[in-house]
């Protein structure tokens, strides 16, 4: 039969080493990806308007800050040794305040100036976390809690309620470009940059340090510098999340940030990433953010109150961690029995 021929021809494409490597590196993402697909279908069935054209752009822009802060949380978690960045939410929230009440009134409104400011601010803020964790050797949960409180206080001090003004291009980033939600362009750019970074040795170093710090150090990895860079990139992603959030709420708000820290932790767990570090990738954080968003869509559709949503979030977080542990156990057991 012809299928025999095509079966023979296919492996040369599918089993190309590069593809195999990508698949192997991302096996952890299988469970969140499956959850994402199932939830997507459930949403589409339950809410008929879910797939409507205008709803797409709105959904994506609501989703965007959740996904970006989740990715920001992912990197420190992967670096192991209790790595976490609690400051991602308030930092993103402070970004809305910075843009709408400081940059815009000062005449800095063009994307060419705003985006570099956001990037530099994110890198520096993350670098402070990185120095505290990697060189001062504070526990990450304490150091970044300090930064959380700092940005939370600063944001509400400057702008205790929604206000300020936003450049038009930033609002448009939350709309559509033709049929495509503009947010997709943002994701595409990040994916492109991340693909370039992943082609290098950064992920190998990161997963090694997260997997076994002593081994990495004695093998010659500069563990402290790696952590510094990792937290810096986390800060950068959190600030990009803040940038998108500014366009979404069309203004600044000192109180809008903190919930994103909690959603980011939940998303990381949902993304199949070990909270002990060393297993997972940036994609997991993104998928986890998507899964969390779709769950919340369903809850909103079912008219669950805000307070109950919080209860559900707690259950999801614990459930996701339990699921991670179970998947890991099954994976180990099946591989062990194969030997």
């Amino acid at each position, binding site marked *: 039969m012809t299928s025999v021929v095509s079966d023979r021809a296919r492996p040369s494409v599918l089993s190309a080493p590069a593809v195999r490597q990508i698949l*192997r590196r991302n096996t952890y993402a299988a469970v969140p990806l499956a959850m994402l697909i199932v939830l997507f279908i459930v949403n589409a069935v339950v809410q008929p308007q879910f797939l409507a054209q205008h709803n797409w752009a709105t959904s994506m822009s609501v989703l965007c800050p959740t996904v970006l802060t989740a990715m920001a949380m992912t990197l420190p978690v992967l670096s192991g040794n209790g790595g976490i960045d609690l400051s991602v939410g308030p930092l993103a929230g402070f970004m809305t305040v910075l843009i709408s009440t400081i940059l815009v009134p000062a005449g800095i409104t063009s994307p060419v100036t705003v985006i570099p400011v956001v990037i530099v601010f994110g890198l520096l803020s993350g670098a402070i976390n990185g120095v505290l964790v990697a060189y001062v050797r504070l526990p990450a949960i304490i150091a970044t809690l300090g930064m959380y409180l700092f940005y939370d206080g600063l944001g509400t001090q400057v702008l205790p309620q929604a206000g300020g003004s936003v450049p038009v291009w930033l609002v448009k980033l939350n709309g559509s470009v033709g049929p495509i939600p503009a947010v997709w362009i943002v994701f595409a750019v990040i994916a492109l940059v991340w693909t370039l*970074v992943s082609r*290098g*040795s*950064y992920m*190998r*170093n990161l*997963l*090694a340090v997260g*997997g*076994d710090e*002593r*081994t*990495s*150090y*004695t*093998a*010659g*990895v*500069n563990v402290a*510098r*790696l952590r510094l*860079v990792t937290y810096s990139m986390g800060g950068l992603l959190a600030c990009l999340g803040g940038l998108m959030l500014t366009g979404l709420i069309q203004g600044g708000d000192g109180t809008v940030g903190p919930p994103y820290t909690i959603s980011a932790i939940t998303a990381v767990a949902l993304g199949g990433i070990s909270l002990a570090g*060393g*297993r997972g990738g940036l994609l997991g954080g993104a998928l986890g953010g998507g899964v969390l968003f779709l769950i919340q869509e369903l809850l909103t559709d079912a008219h669950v109150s805000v307070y109950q949503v919080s209860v559900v979030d707690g259950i999801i977080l614990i459930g996701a961690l339990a699921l991670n542990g179970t998947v890991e156990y099954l994976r*180990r057991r099946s*591989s*062990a029995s194969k*030997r």
Partner: protein
Amino acid sequence: MEGLSRSFGETRALNAATLRVRPSEIHSLVGENGSGKSTLIKILSGVLRPDSGTLVWEGEARQLGSPRSAQGMGIATVFQETLIVPEMTVRDNIYLGTDGLFRYGHRKGDEIAGARQALGDLGLDGFDLDRPMWTLSLAERQLTTVARAIIRPWRLLVLDEATSALDAQQRDRLFDYLRLARSQGRSVLFTSHRMDEVLGLADRITVLRQGATVATMGAGEASRRGILGHMSGREAHADPAVVAETGPRRGAAGQQSPQRTVLRVAELTLRAASKPISVEVRAGEILGLAGLEGQGQVGFVECLCGLRRPVDGQVLALGDNGETHIVRSYRGANRLGIRYVPRDRRYEGLFGPLSVFDNFAITLWGDLNWLGVLRRQQARKRFADFSESSRLVSASPSRAISILSGGNQQKVLLGRWIAMRPRVLVLNDPLRGVDHNTKEELYGLFRRLAADGVAIIFLSTEIAELLTLTDQIAVFHEGSLVAMLPTEMSSDTDVVAAMFGGDRHDGSADD
């Protein structure tokens, strides 16, 4: 290559130790537990920095800031612990640390070829480099850590017990590789707990004792007994009578009529590959446990007190009327009167602000209470008994324990367990870091306890201590009990020989 020499001086763990490794030689570093081997190797690999002393590398004084800088200089190290990242592939584990932060240090094809070559040199031909590390056997993991070292451009390869998981064939393959490297002008420094490896492979041997270098000799002039003698600090043909002078031994006084057995270890297997252990401990007996680091003696102790489950076999506690109970858990062991004093109690067990008496009595209240009301009077009596018998020097039992000297603090901590009136007292290196006088007093205390019928199991890293205090010494090697030496008839050298896996304890037929 110029003559390589390096010397260190570091206090405590290493006390002005000196080591010189020449180009194209295989050099072995030997010594007992705590002689400073590992410390020296950690300095050499850039993990630790010396307090003082210098490292001379190829004629130049150098400083090592990190493992990376040591590797940059050409020193590659395989550490005693098999250091791997379990989730990553074999290739990633081998090339770990050769990259920059974002840029790979090698092309992928070169990595695959290099890893194949290195593993092939070590006898793992055609190995799947994409397997995750945790799926490998222990021996394969260890060989991977060796491969990690040899793919680097090394001129000195340091192997710290790097053969512990290998079988004879794999070991020979590794040694062939090392000899080949030597013929290419490279040097190897290795430690091993197998004396036959040391004698079979090394060109020269440096012996460390208590952090200092005591001898460096060529392999030709070295004999098994000579090396053992240097390690233990006694002349090779030391007479047991000389050993006896180190302290009063338990003699006839302790050995009354045969006492009943209180603890029986039946066919206990510590590791899958080790031999089953059967031992009986009698009331009033002091059994010493010896072995190099990580040879199973700690695991044995943990099995005795229910902290660890053996691979196979049982620990049985025998009651006064001959009834038998199996020790299944730590709580169970406690109920049966088996009390375990762990190793790091100095920092874990002390409540600084509380009084001497409170520190002493804290474990007693479980027994000494009446419906939750503490029976302080009884506890005070036990404290009085204890402080008299241990010659505890203390201004007042109500003063804070932190004002006591270290030795007296140690006494209080031991007293806590002794006051619970154990049937079997299991001690894990209880006198480490205790001054000489306190040691003597505590020896007296242990002897009196034994005379009262308590069985004492005493794990120690100091052989002199075992020879002073115990009735018998059980020596562990690679998870098995390799020798049961009656203390009366054994010398320091016998114990060391057994620790290195020697099967004869007279050692006379050796040269």
